[in-house]
């Protein structure tokens, strides 16, 4: 009986996390389009609901009622599985994100590794979709995307090592608490910049949206998808972007901590701070989409392997020697 209660309590907690995440994904799509329009001096979606807030819901409704077309020559099982994989992976990662000292679904020892693993699995949704479509453009898009995501994962991994050197733990709550006095964005500022750019590449956002470069590949791996399956890809993509923003704010911007531990700031509840930081990073993502032209593919690879990777490796050595020399290494 007790176990049953615990079980239902867990399900309740999962829903309490998942539903806000899904709603905020819908809102963030709207925000993305509004920021994009703002930069280009357009209005953006402003018709459905107040300020056009319900635009995404209207879009979702449209997608639900559209016909799902499965290409005759596709591998049907994998074709249907691909958007499901994308969506699921984008959502399960939220299990370890700490919203406050107590409000975290699973406070596991290797939280940051879990996040890294889940984000590196994200490439499968794209490869599966691209291959199963059995069509040229999706396949080319999938290959590009796989190469791009694997390359930039490497530099994200090295950046995470930088942060871990300063923390001495893989637990996400420990990472946040280690930033009580100084957010890591200050000592590790170059790493924050590289993390931000790598996160853009990892989530296939402009200027690194080569997998779906419409001038070359129609819509990349999504070309053959329609209706609800396309919507799932789309939602999964935005959930991934939000996740990357959350990861950035936990690793560098002090997670749920308030900027200064003084009166008007420390009354605001912790989750609000995390949400504000995620929003800040997301608005940067949206601005970049509006103002930067797309990279060429060889430039993208060069940036990842020849500039970011060596630079972040050198920074690991620097951080480690600094901590060692001033005897600041955690855990002694």
């Amino acid at each position: 009986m007790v176990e049953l209660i615990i079980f239902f309590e867990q399900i309740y907690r999962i829903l309490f996390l998942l539903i806000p995440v899904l709603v905020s994904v819908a809102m963030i799509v709207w925000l993305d389009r509004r920021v994009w329009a703002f930069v280009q001096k357009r209005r953006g979606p402003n018709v459905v609901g107040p300020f056009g807030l319900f635009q995404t819901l209207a879009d979702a409704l449209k997608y639900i009622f559209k016909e799902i077309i499965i290409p005759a020559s596709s591998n049907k099982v994998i074709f249907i599985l691909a958007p499901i994989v994308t969506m699921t992976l984008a959502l399960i990662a939220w299990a370890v994100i700490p919203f406050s000292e107590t409000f975290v679904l699973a406070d596991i020892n290797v939280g940051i590794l879990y996040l890294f693993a889940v984000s590196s699995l994200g490439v499968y949704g794209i490869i599966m979709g691209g291959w199963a479509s059995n069509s040229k453009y999706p396949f080319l898009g999938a290959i590009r995307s796989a190469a791009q995501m694997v390359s930039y994962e490497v530099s994200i991994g090295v950046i995470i090592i930088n942060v871990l050197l300063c923390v001495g733990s893989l637990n996400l709550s420990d990472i946040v608490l280690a930033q009580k006095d100084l957010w890591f964005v200050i000592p590790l500022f170059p790493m924050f910049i590289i993390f931000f750019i790598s996160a853009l590449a990892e989530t296939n956002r402009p200027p690194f949206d080569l997998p779906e470069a419409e001038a070359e590949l129609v819509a990349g791996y999504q070309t053959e998808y329609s209706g609800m399956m396309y919507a799932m890809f789309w939602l999964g993509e935005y959930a991934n972007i939000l996740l990357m923003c959350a990861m950035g704010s936990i690793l560098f911007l002090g997670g749920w901590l308030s900027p200064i531990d003084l009166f008007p700031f420390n009354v605001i509840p912790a989750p609000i701070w995390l949400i504000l930081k995620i929003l800040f990073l997301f608005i940067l993502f949206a601005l970049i989409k509006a103002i930067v032209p797309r990279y060429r593919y060889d430039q993208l690879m060069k940036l990842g392997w020849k500039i970011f990777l060596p630079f972040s490796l050198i920074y690991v050595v620097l951080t480690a020697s600094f901590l060692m020399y001033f005897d600041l290494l955690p855990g002694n």
Partner: protein
Amino acid sequence: MIAHAIVFYIFSLIAIVSAIMVTVSKNTVNSVFFLILDFISISCLFIMIGAEFLGMIMLIVYVGAVAVLFLFVVMMLNVAQQKNEWFNSSGRSSHIPVGLLVSIIIFFELIIVIGGWKYKPDLLDSIAIEINTDLTNTQSLGSVIYTDYIHLFQLSGMVLLVAMIGAIVLTFRQRSGVKRQSYFKQISRDRKDGIELVDVENNKGVKIDA
């Protein structure tokens, strides 16, 4: 505890079935997907016995990187078609006897190695040794790898380095006639290199390609 056992058997069943499906399935891409499923369920098993670091590293390295490249190659090569040609061709295939020979040799090698395997005499007693639960998995692994086993660790790093260099040497090909972008050249360009002011005589023109 019962739930733990049930979950364990579910994961092991998935691992075994997908391992069999890797070899059985006709479509090569499908068998790579089963391989990925196998990796994932094995990393779940690792996590269940409390080796969460190993499980996560398994996911990151094997599923996140190795299997992606594997899938990549298999998709590009279209191996499934080739295999069908091998087996369906009218002449007797010359691949099967060689493959059989190799697998028999490997099988006997495995038997020789495992047959000579000796366990530490006090292995059974060491099971009862208490595990230090204050340290997390990652910390205890780190404290051993970088001190007691540093030479083995470095050696495996060297092996990987050699493999990496080998892969680059085998695949690197300098093609001629490819235009490459050089940032330094672009940045260090001067006004003198790019622009030339010429007085053009009427009806004569200028020779442009110097």
